[in-house]
């Protein structure tokens, strides 16, 4: 099929041009493919993380529901995990989170707030944060109290009209990225009587300045209550914060924040025509119900979603890391009847780790049996348990169940649009649903709306339409995955309700890079994250590879490699496309998997004396570990006692179904510098494992000078 080039000069020129163009177009296509793959990598890892969070939560729920402590010490230990979820009565809250007794020392050079707040306070605050100053805890608490008081008066659905202010500006996820908020205010102007803003949730988590963002938003909310509107996002949720790292700054502040989040409105309506919610909708979304429910009862919306029996079984087995063999062995040992009945839980002492973990497994297994029987017999109703984080004092809802109310909120905060018609469970996130264009049409018609604005999903250009421009996603955290990964955007609506977009990127350097360089850097970051994930599953990968290598040659085909990796990681990624950047094949097209995994391990290992098996476990479960640690550190001081540390590990190992020897734990402890007073600064501990990432980030940072676009 290849043409023979004829001799004349012009033809030669022409063919040279064709050749170059041909080559260049192939290059660009490849670049586009790499960009899309990179995006898929980041997104699938992010959503897998959210799923993990739900699994962990489910595990603790079971533990909490079915663990009968045999001593006050045990009771104390486990109940600590969930006490922080309770909602407080007004008086209790005032007393508990009292700030008036807190003195602001003379040495404090940060901004001072007095109430009621004035516009000057807001601008002073912005200037202070730009100078990297912090707000004193007293003022933070005071602000939170006042915010809560204000939010309590607001309805579940805020109403905004474009006749009072010329335009409304809607912003999406900020995720603790204060620079983006600064950029928005710089480009668009501060909130004012002539400038309305709607912030559509996910103000916190992942970025480093979550508290600052809250302070700024709440301040403007109080200064301009008619012009600033906040919607709750799925990250304005206690359990999610624990996971993603927002639980710092002391117990009082955290407690107050929990009690402010639950009072955030759920939605905003512009001119009764445009509905703004954080996640999305479902086919059962009912705005009338949403307007009437007591939204503050739902401190945390996160809880396990009921699935079909087979899925649930698998999920539960994953949580306790139990293989089928173990389960049947345990049942056998327990000498229980074919259908085990719930026995009074006699918890062994937690100091005998082996006994305890065996007991935990047994308990959970028994629960599975019970649930299986329950599932067979009934409807969609899920039983409420202690761990549902809903205040039980006030059970009376008008004419619908707590269950239905909870689903309404969950759908609003967690759902994602999908291209196909219908409405199905959002199994990727673990909460909410996927809704199709028909659902959008139905809900828009039902309430005479023109279109929806939502956030919740990172978009390359900062915004994206779908469902024939009936659903707009707006995302305001630029460079979300990595510098250069995406732009942020905000949208302005005038009385004609025609959207106008402004895009930005809060890092000047991103603009000076060529397309290739930008894609390469983001790609590098994505692959690093992916290799880390691969390493974390080393043991499972080896088993999977060995299944294809019965002769023990240490080699497998590339095809089998791709299949095996997907079966272990289950990220739904195009592994054959990604393979060249992950693993080298030999000349005969085979892959030496053992040396490949060793190479991965070498890249990850930052400390030599820790057993690599332990390191792998830690890596795989680093986020889980952080969550568990934060729960254990009740006063959020960053310190846990040595004893608590050991107990945490024991609990952790029973959860992860791995045997951690006391020696292994001691080695770990010794390799990190602990002061000798029996307290562990676990932030340092976790830092130690972030070192490799941290170091390379530092190197990259030194090459760039981050600054705001100006």
């Amino acid at each position, binding site marked *: 099929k290849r043409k023979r080039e004829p001799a004349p000069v012009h033809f030669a020129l022409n063919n040279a041009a064709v050749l170059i*163009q*041909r080559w260049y177009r192939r290059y*660009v296509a490849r670049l*586009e493919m790499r960009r899309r793959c990179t995006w898929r990598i980041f997104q699938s890892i992010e959503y897998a993380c959210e799923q993990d969070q739900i699994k962990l939560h489910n595990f603790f729920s079971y533990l909490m529901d079915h663990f009968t402590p045999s001593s006050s010490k045990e009771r104390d230990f486990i109940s600590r995990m969930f006490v922080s979820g309770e909602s407080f009565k007004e008086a209790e809250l005032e007393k508990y989170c009292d700030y008036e007794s807190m003195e602001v020392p003379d040495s404090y050079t940060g901004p001072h707030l007095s109430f009621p707040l004035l516009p000057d306070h807001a601008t002073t605050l912005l200037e202070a944060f730009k100078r990297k100053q912090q707000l004193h805890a007293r003022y933070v608490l005071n602000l939170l109290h006042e915010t809560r008081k204000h939010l309590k008066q607001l309805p579940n659905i805020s109403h905004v009209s474009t006749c009072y202010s010329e335009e409304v500006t809607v912003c999406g996820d900020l995720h603790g990225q204060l620079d983006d908020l600064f950029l928005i205010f710089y480009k668009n102007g501060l909130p004012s009587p002539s400038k309305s803003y709607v912030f559509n949730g996910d103000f916190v988590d992942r970025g480093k300045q979550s508290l600052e963002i809250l302070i700024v938003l709440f301040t403007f909310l109080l200064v301009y209550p008619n012009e600033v509107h906040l919607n709750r996002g799925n990250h304005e949720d206690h359990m999610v914060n624990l996971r993603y790292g927002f639980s710092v700054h002391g117990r009082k502040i955290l407690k107050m924040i929990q009690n402010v989040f639950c009072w955030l409105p759920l939605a905003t309506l512009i001119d009764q025509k445009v509905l703004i919610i954080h996640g999305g909708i479902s086919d059962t979304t009912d705005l009338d119900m949403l307007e009437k429910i007591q939204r503050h009862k739902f401190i945390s919306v996160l809880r396990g979603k009921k699935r079909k029996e087979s899925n649930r079984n698998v999920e539960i087995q994953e949580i306790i890391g139990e293989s089928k063999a173990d389960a049947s062995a345990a049942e056998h040992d327990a000498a229980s009847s074919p259908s085990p009945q719930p026995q009074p839980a006699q918890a062994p002492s937690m100091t005998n780790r082996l006994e305890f973990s065996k007991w935990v497994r047994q308990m959970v297994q028994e629960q599975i049996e019970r649930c299986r029987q329950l599932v067979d017999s009934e409807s969609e109703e899920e039983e409420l348990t202690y761990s549902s984080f809903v205040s039980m004092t006030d059970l009376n809802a008008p004419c619908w169940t707590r269950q239905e109310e909870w689903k309404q909120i969950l759908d609003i905060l967690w759902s994602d649009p*999908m291209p*196909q018609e219908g409405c199905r469970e959002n199994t990727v996130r673990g909460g909410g649903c996927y809704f199709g264009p028909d659902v959008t049409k139905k809900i828009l018609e039902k309430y005479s709306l023109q279109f929806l604005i939502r956030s919740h999903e990172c978009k390359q250009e900062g915004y994206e339409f779908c469902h024939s421009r009936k659903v707009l996603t707006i995302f305001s955290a630029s460079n979300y995955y990595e510098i250069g990964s995406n732009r942020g955007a905000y949208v302005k609506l005038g009385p004609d309700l025609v959207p106008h977009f402004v895009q930005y990127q809060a890092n000047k350097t991103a603009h000076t890079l060529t397309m290739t360089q930008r894609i390469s850097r983001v790609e590098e970051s994505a692959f690093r994250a992916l290799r880390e994930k691969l390493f974390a599953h080393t043991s499972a990968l080896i088993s999977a590879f060995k299944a294809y290598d019965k002769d023990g040659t240490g080699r497998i085909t590339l095809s089998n490699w791709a299949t095996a990796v997907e079966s272990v990681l289950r990220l739904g990624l195009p592994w054959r496309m990604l393979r*060249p950047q992950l693993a080298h094949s030999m000349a005969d097209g085979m892959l030496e998997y053992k040396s490949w995994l060793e190479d991965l391990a070498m890249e990850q290992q930052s400390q030599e004396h820790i057993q690599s098996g332990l390191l792998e476990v830690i890596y795989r479960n680093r986020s889980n570990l952080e969550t568990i640690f934060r729960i254990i550190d009740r006063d959020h001081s960053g310190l846990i006692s040595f004893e608590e540390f050991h107990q945490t590990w024991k609990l952790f190992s029973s959860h992860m179904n791995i045997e951690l020897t006391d020696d292994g734990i001691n080695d770990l402890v010794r390799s990190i510098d602990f002061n000798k007073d029996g307290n562990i600064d676990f932030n340092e501990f976790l830092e130690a494992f972030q070192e490799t990432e941290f170091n390379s980030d530092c190197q990259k940072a030194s090459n760039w000078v981050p600054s705001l676009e100006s």
Partner: protein
Amino acid sequence: TGKENDNEYTFHESFFCFSLFLFADRVVAEIEKKVIEAFEVFDHECNKTVDVREIGSVVRSLGCYPTEAELQELLAEVEEEEPTGYIHLEKFLPVMTRVLLERSYQPIPEDVLLHAFEALDENKCGYLTKEELVKYMTEEGEPFTQEEMEDMLSAALEPETNTVCYKDYITLMIVDDV
């Protein structure tokens, strides 16, 4: 004895053909998996279709270097009888698999690429001026769009001299293109 030999030969022959078939089947299966993977990356609606304007990207990211004309020929094979603007996987898969098996649209080796640039460099000075490159790329061969031209210039052009040292440019691109 001749008869026996005939039978043995037939047996070996058919055994050989059968093994070839099995082997070929595995190879084809693997190629199909690759094609499906690449296709799905551009299947935004998750319904086994790709916008016709993006099919070129799919074909090229599978390692092929077709000209625009060759791509059009390919499209003609995979489009619906009444073109809908979308290409369906079930039509694309067998055609693309055949393309990969036949190794059509071979990659361009570095030295051939260099010769192509040299052919445009009339004065043999080792570089092209911005004007020269733009003229050739937008007027000759299968002309670039303005966007394509700007993209190429952003990476290839040395702003101080307004020239493209094509040898360096090729090296840069080859390295980047993992």
